[in-house]
């Protein structure tokens, strides 16, 4: 939620901003006209913030169905001369890569900025790929902000440089930039008055057939050299000589290096890179000529380090020998590495852990989450099954006690993997589990493939009417756009039929008995089957007034001698069901009244309570 008006026309004012909100503000200061994104942590707040002021400023802001579409929407706008932004998490760039890999050939017209929000340490991701490598692969410049202020300033600069050099620009952030906060001094907003944009046809540039691309590629390589010369002169890179030992750093690590040098009271030369692709080799050569040994401090891959090594001319280059190649850097990791590099005495702060045994608290499905009911029903239907899973809140179903997910690789892949399991001839029934937003993102073509190629699997679309995990963004199944306007809403049942499913049913998971029946029926059939399990996300349900009065535990029925305190209610793994003095206890402030514990209790010891209203 942005409380501060991101479009406030108050240049010079200092505000406390999330990195992603600072990026949104930078895009506004650059006069962005079209912004498109698919939600994904840690990138989601960028488009959310722009969408909040889009109508007022005359910006088109959209949640696209996936990252490839988002980037392509931005490309079209840019070809027409408008400044355009596409935002996504690091793995989202993989989805957009098909477009990105050729985009640098055509170049852009209006400034085009692709925000790639990387997630070192995998706070909320399946991998921790370093997208600077993708910037290099796609032959586009990569800018790396290091705090909220630079996130805003670099975004604005990225649009300018993109337009000036006619190249798409990657603004690469990490979790500790996107989800860090800091004080930001606002700049001016441009005049957002009406402006017409037009596309100037130029087949040799925009139509990438072999004959054209053969000419575009050498031109692109020449442009990259030009960009590199530009980068060597850019103020985004800062060089300061202060000692015989030098440190080269970029991104959030710049902050850790500054603090480490200060804490250790060391004298070093420092080269901070704001542009990490193409690497400003001329600048680096100058830096290397003034130092005797150099340490490269960067998160994840030795991206800068390996290139510096190729330029070093015999100077010792340290880096990943002192710092990990995986996970996030931390202030103390950097302090330790800098101390070892400088040969300074250093004792790391002691590691302490509590003597008391602390029960773990991993993320869990929320109380009242309908995924829980669906998973539990699936487990009750006895047949042996393989669950090909996917990415979303429902991935949490992989954990104890539900364990209803056997694979999770990337968006949409469960649905296709299920087909591979089937064609490999596994004995188990194959069930693909996919969320509503994920299905629209990457499941449609996979479902069509199953129908066409005869994969007899059961597909369950977990439709909670929102993109829940990333903060409740709307999608084409919800009938609402990013800016809150009513729009077309796709019908999952009709869609599944159109794509070739032979059996399609819809259930409400909170109607547990009906769900069991439908799942049994679906599993007893052959062919491609689709079950749409529709129930609004419990967090949405609260806003929609769907929460009911928590049920009551009938104490005398939940006692040892009657039912041997079976604890069936605990096997659903609901945070709102506890166990207290030998019987079930409903934790009222967490309970949404979904009724799953009522449904699973074999002794009718948990009873629904009539709503007063």
């Amino acid at each position: 939620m942005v409380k501060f008006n991101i479009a406030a026309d108050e240049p010079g004012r200092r505000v406390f901003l999330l990195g992603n909100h600072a990026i949104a503000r930078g895009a506004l200061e650059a006069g962005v006209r079209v912004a498109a994104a698919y939600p994904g942590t840690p990138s989601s707040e960028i488009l959310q913030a722009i969408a909040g002021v889009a109508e007022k400023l005359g910006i088109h802001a959209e949640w696209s169905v996936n990252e490839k579409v988002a980037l392509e929407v931005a490309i079209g706008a840019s070809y027409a001369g408008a400044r355009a932004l596409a935002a996504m998490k690091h793995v989202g760039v993989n989805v957009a890569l098909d477009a990105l890999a050729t985009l640098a050939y055509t170049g852009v017209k209006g400034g085009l900025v692709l925000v790639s929000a990387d997630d070192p340490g995998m706070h909320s991701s399946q991998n921790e790929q370093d997208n600077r490598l993708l910037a290099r692969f796609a032959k586009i410049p990569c800018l790396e902000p290091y705090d909220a202020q630079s996130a805003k300033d670099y975004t604005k600069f990225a649009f300018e440089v993109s337009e000036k050099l006619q190249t798409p620009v990657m603004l690469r952030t990490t979790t500790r930039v996107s989800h860090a906060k800091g004080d930001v001094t606002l700049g001016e907003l441009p005049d957002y008055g009406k402006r017409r944009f037009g596309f100037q046809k130029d087949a040799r540039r925009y139509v990438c057939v072999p004959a054209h691309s053969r000419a575009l590629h050498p031109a692109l390589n020449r442009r990259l050299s030009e960009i590199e010369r530009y980068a060597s002169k850019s103020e985004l890179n800062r060089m300061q000589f202060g000692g015989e030992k030098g440190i080269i750093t970029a991104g959030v690590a710049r902050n850790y290096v500054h603090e480490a040098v200060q804490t250790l009271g060391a004298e070093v030369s420092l080269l901070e890179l704001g542009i990490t692709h193409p690497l400003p080799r001329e600048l680096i050569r100058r830096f290397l000529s003034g130092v005797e040994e150099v340490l490269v401090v960067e998160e994840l891959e030795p991206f800068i380090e390996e290139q510096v090594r190729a330029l070093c001319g015999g100077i010792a280059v340290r880096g990943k020998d002192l710092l990990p190649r995986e996970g996030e850097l931390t202030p103390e990791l950097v302090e330790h590495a800098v101390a070892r590099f400088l040969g300074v005495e250093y004792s790391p702060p002691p590691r302490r852990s509590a003597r008391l045994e602390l029960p773990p608290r991993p993320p869990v499905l929320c109380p009242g989450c309908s995924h829980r009911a669906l998973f539990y029903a699936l487990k009750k239907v006895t047949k042996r099954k393989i669950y090909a899973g996917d990415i979303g809140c429902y991935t949490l179903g992989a954990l104890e006690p539900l364990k209803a997910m056997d694979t999770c690789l990337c968006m949409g892949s469960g649905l296709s993997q299920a087909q591979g399991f089937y064609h490999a001839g596994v004995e188990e029934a194959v069930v693909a589990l996919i969320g509503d937003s994920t299905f629209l993102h990457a499941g449609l073509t996979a479902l069509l493939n199953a129908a066409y190629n005869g994969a007899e699997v059961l597909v369950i679309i977990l439709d909670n009417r929102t993109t829940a995990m990333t903060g409740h963004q709307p999608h084409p199944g919800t009938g609402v756009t990013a800016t809150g306007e009513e729009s077309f809403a796709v019908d999952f049942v009709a869609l599944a039929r159109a794509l070739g499913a032979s059996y399609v049913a819809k259930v409400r998971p909170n109607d547990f008995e009906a769900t069991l029946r439908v799942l049994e029926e679906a599993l007893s059939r052959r062919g491609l089957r689709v079950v749409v399990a529709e129930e609004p996300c419990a967090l949405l349900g609260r806003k929609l007034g769907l929460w009911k009065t928590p049920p009551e535990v009938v104490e005398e029925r939940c006692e040892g001698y009657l039912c041997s305190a079976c604890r069936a209610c605990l096997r659903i793994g609901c945070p709102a069901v506890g166990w207290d003095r030998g019987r079930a206890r409903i934790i009222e402030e967490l309970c949404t009244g979904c009724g799953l514990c009522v449904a699973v209790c074999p002794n009718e010891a948990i009873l629904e309570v009539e709503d007063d209203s």
Partner: protein
Amino acid sequence: MIANLLIAGVGGQGIILLSDVLGNAAISSGLSVRGSETHGMAQRGGSVVAHVRIGRVRSPLIPRGRADYLLALEPLEALRYLDYLGERCHAVVSTSPVPPASVHAKVAGYPDVQALLAELSEYAEVYPVEARELAKRAGSVLTANTVMLGALSALPGFPLSARVLRDSIASRVPPKTLDMNLRAFNLGRRAVKG
């Protein structure tokens, strides 16, 4: 002056709101501020931590062993970040447990709250706060985070004044909950000041 504050709790307890209120209050006081927080998957009922650093700093993360203040919205969570506590750390800790699912399922037991506080006091000056009770008294258990903010504001040397924090609360919470939140803030403040 640098004040490093670590906020620990459970996803959904309103930690992001607290870091917003503190950050805005710092800016109103003419101070620099940085911080870092948890979004996305980790939030879903999991352990959540936020860093807030007031003063001229660069890193959004508090270095290990350098937190001056700990604000724990849950007693068990207060013990997870002992690594971060600096010498002379002051800790305001809610004494109202939120048992994790692993406790319900009997995978693990919830430690005794007094034992938790006792162990924490080996590393920090501990100020226990009955956040849940005080929040109820203010009007809603949902104001427990504001109770704890009030308690934090009363700690010795805390760099942000109660007045600035109250203004910052006013600009961040829904208007119809403002009175309730200010009551909660004051109750928390009194719980520490006595």
